[in-house]
Each structure stands twice: as C-alpha cells, then as structure tokens.
C-alpha cells in the first residue's frame, strides 16, 4: 500500500492528501492515510472522502511512502514519520515544487535525517516542465472524457465575498434562467449561506469541498473561476482534471493564476459579461477547445504515469476503470430520506417496479425503511442518519 503524506501538517496539507489519494486510488493504486494525521477539525464532507483511506499504519503493510508538498515539510510531519518505523518500507518518495536547487537539497536532507535513509526526491516543475498554479500541491491524472449531454453543464466558482455585491446574485440567476447552460454554483460556506437566505435559493449549489475534484470534473463541461486569490487545492485539482478530460476552463480570477502556462481561457472580469462571452466564444467551439486542452503539452505532463515513471511505481489497473461508468451502465438509486422515509420509500418502490432494468435499481434509505424496501425485492443500503457529529 502507498502511504500518502503531505509536507505541511495543517488543514491544507491534509486536504491535499485526500485529493491526491483519490486520484491515485482511481488509477488503481492501494492507498492509505495515517489516521494519526487527522486534524482536530474535519469538514463533514472530508470525513466521507477520507474514510476509505484512513488506517492505523501499524496494521497495514506499507510498500511506499509518497509525500507531496515536500517544499515545505513541517517538524510535526517529520516527527510522525519517524515514529512510524518505516525501516521495512521499500521506498520513500517525495514530490515538491522547489524554487531552487538548495530547496530540493534541504528537503531531501530533512527527510534523510528524520528517517535515517535517503528518499527519492522529484521536483514537480521538472516532472511537469511547466509551472503549476501555486495553490496546487497534489498532482493529477487523466480520465477519459464522458459523452457530452445536450446542454453544457456550467460550474461557476464564486467565492463568498464576491456575493456581498448585491448585483452578483441577480446576474447568476439570469445565467441560470437562460436556456444555454445547466448552471451549478460552486462556493464556500459563506457563499452557500448567503444564497440559501436569498430569494435565489433555488440556484443549483455546491460547496467547493462537498464533492471531490474528480467527481466535479465528471459532471462539468465548462468551469469558470472567479476570485481575488489564487485557486485553492481542490479547485486547482478540479481545473486540471477538466483539462485532462477535454473540458473547458475559463479563468476570470483577478490573479489569472491559471493562465501562466495552462490551457485555460481568459474570461471577462465582469460577471455580467460572462453569458455573452460563453455564448459567442465558448459554446460554439466547445469541442475544439476541449481537444486543445486535452492534447496540450501542459496537460500531457500531468499524468499519473509521469509520477509512476519517476519513482518506479508499478502501474496498477487502468486509468479510470474503477471510476467511469458509461451511459449503458447507468444505475438508478432511490434516496427516500424525507422524514422517516416510510411514505416516500413505499411510493418509490412502486415507481421502481414500473422501471425497466430492475437489476440496475437500488435504494439507500434509513434503517426503518430497509425491511420494507427489501421486502419489495430491491437491494437497499442502510443510511446513517444525520447526527450532532455531522
């Protein structure tokens, strides 16, 4: 198993571990995150994202340590790695974005002193040959492009503080009302609260940490990023997943951090100019833009195969096979979760009984409903109700 670690022992480092672990796992690698590295406070969605990877290191057989963000390794990370007793681990590998040779030497030395053995250290910029958005310390993998739906799905990232401008929400609503896109707004917790309390609460809304970057990338055809700062870890990974999937990324941030070398489009600073820009310049050329992004040298340099090759990690499985589902394999899952769910559960079983391909129908419901649903002949996964820990 590959133990994924991050140089920084803070929330950003932990989030980067989750993102990178998901990417490695989607590429067929067995991945583990040290449960002792859990931060004191974990976002609700992070708990579900990280759960598949968490383990007590003493209980698993580690074949390799892969540490990301090696340009900034904290003493706490070193102390914890030293205590893991990694003497039997085949390889210690570290990736970092090192601004100069001394930084790389310093990182290698720190790991070597703490672990008592020399790590393999790779400079991310050497691996990619072109610079990365500064916020990203995880690396990305390819996923095959899905079949495009009739209406492009537009994911619009808007930081919460941008919504303080009273003109913003009406503009977003106008974009949503237009027939050209299926709009989903990605924002932070502050932004979600603001929208839900407004008269525009009907907008399709996601917290930017609610779904992993790969899941977001499967759903979006176009992503537009607004904001004053460089993109955070998740949004950077989301953008790169989109490039790899042949989709379109538009950089409307004030820093234009994606435009340095990545195949992103420069979008309008003003939100009210966005619909026209999309309709005139982007949508008619969506396919060509996607091909350009997917085939660009920048995107090609960011495949997980590069990391496997750099560290001699045997390839495991085929990219995307554990993740992607074609339309022919689509399944329908019923979630009758309002109230106790009994009434809804019963009505859903009636609907399910009328559907074709009963073998691709499933239920996820509260424990009180499981017996009823299974009695109707459908598979049912019991759900854990929301608790004070959520």
């Amino acid at each position, binding site marked *: 198993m590959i133990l994924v670690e991050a140089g920084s022992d803070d929330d950003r480092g932990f989030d980067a571990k989750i993102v990178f672990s998901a990417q490695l796992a989607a590429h067929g690698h067995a991945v583990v995150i040290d449960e002792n590295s859990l931060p004191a406070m974990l976002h609700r969605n992070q708990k579900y994202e990280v759960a598949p990877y968490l383990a007590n290191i003493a209980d698993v057989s580690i074949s390799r340590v892969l540490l990301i963000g090696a340009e900034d390794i904290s003493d706490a990370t*070193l102390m914890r790695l030293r205590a893991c007793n990694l003497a039997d681990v085949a390889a210690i590998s570290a990736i970092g974005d090192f601004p*100069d040779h*001394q930084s790389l030497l*310093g990182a290698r030395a*720190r790991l070597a*002193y703490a672990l*008592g*053995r*020399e790590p393999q250290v790779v400079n991310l910029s050497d691996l990619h040959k072109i610079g990365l958005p500064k916020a990203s310390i995880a690396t990305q993998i390819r996923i095959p492009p899905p079949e495009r739906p009739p209406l492009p799905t537009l994911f619009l990232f808007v930081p919460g503080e941008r919504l303080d401008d009273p003109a913003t929400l009406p503009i977003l609503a106008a974009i949503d009302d237009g027939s050209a896109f299926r709009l989903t707004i990605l924002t932070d917790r502050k932004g979600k609260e603001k929208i839900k309390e407004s008269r525009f609460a009907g907008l399709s809304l996601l917290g930017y940490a609610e779904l992993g970057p790969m899941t977001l990338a499967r759903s979006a055809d176009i992503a537009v990023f607004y904001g004053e700062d460089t993109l955070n870890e998740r949004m950077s990974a989301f953008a790169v997943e989109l490039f790899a999937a042949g989709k379109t990324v538009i950089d409307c941030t004030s820093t234009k951090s994606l435009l340095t070398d990545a195949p992103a489009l420069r979008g309008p600073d003003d939100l009210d100019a966005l619909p026209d820009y999309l309709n005139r310049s982007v949508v008619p050329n969506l396919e060509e833009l996607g091909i350009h992004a997917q085939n660009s040298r920048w995107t090609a340099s960011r495949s997980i195969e590069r990391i496997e090759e750099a560290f001699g990690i045997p390839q495991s499985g085929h990219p995307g096979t554990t993740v992607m589902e074609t339309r022919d394999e689509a399944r329908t899952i019923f979630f009758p979760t309002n109230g106790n769910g009994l009434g809804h559960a019963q009505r859903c079983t009636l609907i399910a009984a009328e559907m074709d391909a009963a073998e691709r129908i499933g239920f996820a419901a509260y424990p009180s409903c499981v017996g009823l649903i299974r009695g109707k002949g459908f598979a049912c996964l019991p759900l854990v109700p929301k608790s004070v820990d959520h």
Partner: protein
Amino acid sequence: MTGHLTLAYIIDPRFQGGTSAAVAREFRALHDLAHIRVHAVTSRMFRGKEVAPVLQNALDDLGIPVVWDAPHVSADTVVLHNPAFLKFDPPFAMRIFARNFIVVTHENFLRPGGYEAFDAGHCLKLLDSACLALRKTLAPVSSHNRTTIADWLATRSGFDNWSLLDTDWHNICDFPILTPTPAPLDRRGRHSRPGFEKFPSLEQLDACFPEHAIANVIVGGDAFRHESTHRLHWTLVPFQSIEIDKYFEMIDFMVYFTAPTWRESFGRVLAEGIAAGKVVISDPDTASVFDGAVIPSRPAEVTAVISHFINHPKRYAEHVLAAQAKLAVFSADAFRATHGAMIGDLPEAAA
C-alpha cells in the same frame, strides 16, 4: 604584538554551536599576529538570530569592532568562515579584494552516500563573482571534511580556480583537561543540539543506552520525550539547560552516533568529551578525525567496548590520557604554528 599585515574575516556571526566557538578561539589565537578586522554579513540563513554570545564575548574582549554588510572588504588575507551561510542568498553584494582568500568549509559538501549536503556550487559561485584574489583556497576543517570537499570537486567543473589547502583548518580546541576517573562505571551520555541529523535510529539509541546501564544521560534529546519514544531509563536533558561540566560529572563514557545520513565535519563535542576525561565512542568516519583518540565502533558493539574498560580501569585511564595528548594538534599553539605562518608569509602592507 600586532603586525602590519591585514587579516579580514567575513562571517555571519549569528551562527550558533561549535563553529562560533571555534571562530571565537581563532580570533583570540591570531589577534597578535595581524591586524584583524571582522566583517559581518546579514545572510538569510540566520534571519532572526542574535550574534552568538561566544563570538560577541571574544570580539568585546579583543576590542574588535564589527562592520555589518560593508560594500567591499580588502585585506592581505581574507578568511570567510562557513560558506554555507550563503546558500539561501541571491548574488552577493559585497566585493572582496585580497591576495589570499581562504574559505573555511565548516560543513561537509557531501553527506554519506555522496549526496549533496547543501548547494555548495551556488555558494562558491557567489564568492567567485564577488572576489578578486591572487589565490582562492578552500580550507577543510578535518580529514573527513577534506574527503567530502575533494570528492565534490572531482565531480564538478568550473571550480578549477579553487585550491585545497594542504593542512586542515581545524577547530581550535583548548578545553580544560580533566583527570580520568580511576574507577569508571557504566554511566553513558551524549550531548548535542536536538536536530534529527544528530541522532541515529531509535533502535540504535537503544543499543547505545540500554536499560542495564547505571546512567544514560542524553542532552538535547528533546524529541524523545514523545510517549512513543520515551525510555524510563534515559535521563533526557533539554538542550542548553545544563552546564556542560555538570553533565560530564554524570557520565564516564560518551557515546556519540548520528543519523546514518549525516556526519560531523569536525566533531567538536567529541574533543570536549576527551578533554573532560571520558572515553569517547563514535562511528569510524567521525572517529577518524581524532587519530585514535575516539574509539571507532558501531551501536551494537558499544556495550562490549564499555564493558572492556570497566573491567580494565587502568586501560580506561591510559586511553583517556593518550587521547588527551592527541588533542594538542587542535590547540591554539598548533593553529598558530600551522596557519599563522601562512598568514604572516605575505609582503608587508605599504606604510
């Protein structure tokens, strides 16, 4: 007596530890051989640190003013201690003019296995660009340090204008010499700053400091207070929290091993242990600097070595006395004899 020859030092006086102590002793040893000027550089490496007290005391005692970040330094001989302090710096603004430019390499250029210890190439290139000198010399501080410098030079191009000094620019060690105990006991210890590089693996530390020893004193073992590494039979003393002579009273054997991925360039703490009348045990590379005064060994063999001396206390005393005699090569007199002549062997400055 102060000569007419000018000797300028370039240092970042905020570096701590043995290097500062060595440089401070050097000022005192050479003060009457030449007119000494000290130029300090504000490097990025020691940002936020204060001037090392041992250096400040020496400068105050000798009445040597310090000039910070001078635009140029010129002297018959310019000595720069520890070029590694430039490893984070952009191009060096200072301009150096000298007949003889000596760079004392306090840090090994290579770590065990041949891995670069720091970007020495960057540091030397900065100095090359900044300095106009008839002769540019790298001065290793020990035989082991010399090996790392020579191996580094052998695998790099562009540094042919640097020569390697024939004699080591050793740390001046003039610690008080104490009489060895006639009845050594299995009381073990080590002292260092707390960095990971200073310590071997936990398994090796267990071999060095076992439960059956009467005492296991580890000064600077701050990292081992964690519950997963804490040993009840170890006395962990935080770094710089105890007088060094008090620590030496607690032990008869100094057992000093580092991370396998790092080595001392000189090992001043080992000379300190010898002078304090202790049998000092270390790895072969580190021990080689001291020509038999330090016993080369491995962690797994330490208990056998110690048992031998406990069972043969006369041999303990004989070894310590012989080892202390060998410290004479690191004395201030030896330093003056070796390097004072080089510094003094220059045309006198024009009146």
